[in-house]
């Protein structure tokens, strides 16, 4: 038996591990994973991609999926929590200590995900608006197409600072330095749901259950995700 799991890009490393352990527990079942930016995955599912499970990086993408009747709302559960952090290259000489420092004239360029399509960008926008920095930061921004691109720009020192998920920053501890965790007006929650289509795969529900189980949560914690 096979199940196809479509998930947000930021879940790549964690969900590959989850899939492996799920297969170990359910011999004979094969988990096929497909990762992409949450909104891309959403579009594929809405257009009838034969996926069984959808895991998104924010509520908005999942809301759209529900609205388009692409997933079964009864199965929707939040399964992980994350946070947005401000990062700089490890060798940064600017000496930034706080989001407010981004006002300084010697901070020329910074990056975050495009709020129009990338969950991490939407969270960043909300946080910066809360601390009254959005107007200052926006003109200096280079929009990234997803979290990992923002991370890459910072890691290569092409920009002076950037906003990413805490779990992503943890991937390159030797290249980027976390300056500050941002307060968020709404929690950074990851929802999961079974895709609605003819002849629902019986293993889909089991996979969701496994992600929510103690074993699944342990794996996610290993990759830096917190409990919802």
């Amino acid at each position, binding site marked *: 038996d096979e199940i*196809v799991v*479509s998930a947000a*890009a930021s879940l*790549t*490393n964690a969900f590959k591990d989850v899939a492996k352990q799920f297969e170990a527990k359910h011999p004979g079942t094969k988990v*096929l*994973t*497909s*990762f*992409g930016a949450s909104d*891309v995955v959403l*579009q*594929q599912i809405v*257009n*009838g*991609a*034969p*996926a069984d499970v959808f895991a998104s990086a924010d509520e908005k993408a999942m809301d759209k999926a529900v609205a388009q009747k692409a997933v079964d709302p009864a199965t929707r559960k939040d399964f992980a929590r994350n946070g947005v952090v401000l990062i700089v290259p490890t060798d940064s000489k600017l000496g930034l200590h706080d989001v407010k420092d981004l006002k300084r004239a010697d901070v020329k360029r910074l990056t975050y995900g495009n709020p129009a399509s990338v969950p991490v960008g939407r969270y960043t926008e909300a946080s910066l608006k809360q601390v009254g920095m959005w107007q200052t930061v926006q003109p200096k921004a280079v929009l990234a197409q*997803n979290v*990992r*691109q923002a*991370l*890459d720009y910072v*890691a290569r020192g092409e920009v002076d600072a950037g906003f990413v998920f805490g779990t992503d920053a943890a*991937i*390159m501890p030797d290249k980027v330095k976390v300056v500050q965790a941002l307060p968020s007006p709404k929690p950074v929650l990851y929802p999961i749901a079974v895709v609605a*289509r003819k002849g629902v795969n019986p293993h889909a529900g089991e996979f969701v259950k496994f992600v929510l189980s103690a074993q699944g949560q342990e794996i996610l914690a290993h990759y830096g995700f917190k409990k919802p």
Partner: protein
Amino acid sequence: MTGLVVPLLLSLKVAGWATLFAAVLGTAAAFGLAHWRSRWCNFVDSVLTLPLVLPPTVMGYYLLVLFGRRGWLGVWLAHWNIELVFTWQGAVLAATVVAFPLVLKSARAAFEEVDPQLCNAARVLGSSEAAIFFRVVLPLASRGILAGVLLAFARALGEFGATLMIAGNIPGRTQTLSIAIYEAVQAGNDDLANILVLVTSVTCIVVLWLAGHFLPAYGRRGSKR
């Protein structure tokens, strides 16, 4: 090791089929355009070039809308039990659409270079127009067409925007080399990315190099120099 072989074979399969389709369709369309003497000719040509102009992701999005479960072509194909979304056949579709204009333009230029006097010679020798195409025009245009086909192959091998959209990124099933490279770069896994790039490059160079040896011999008329 299998982590390399599976996407490599998949890439070759997808690029191979896509090149075949693009070559046949592109050559046929080019021949039509080269002989259809109308003001609309260049217009149709430009329209057929569009798959090259639109960003592949966008191309892929439209293919998804068209061939998805709810798309009207998708619904139609479902009757025949053909599913394109999230399958390697979908990747072939994406690569074909994107590679098609490359064959079209090269082949059209090549067809228009063929001396019409030679077609006349074949005509008085009793050949039908179809026979003239296969016996005179096609061989004489083969160099230009081949250039287009090689470009198409390279493009199909490198295609990933549209593929990612319609075929998804499923290791072992739709994860081609290009998508694997993309994922490795995104994951910050530079070493794997470099290895994959090397494999792709070597594959492509080998295939193009081999193809270079099949250039028709009569093309070597320059050897007198």
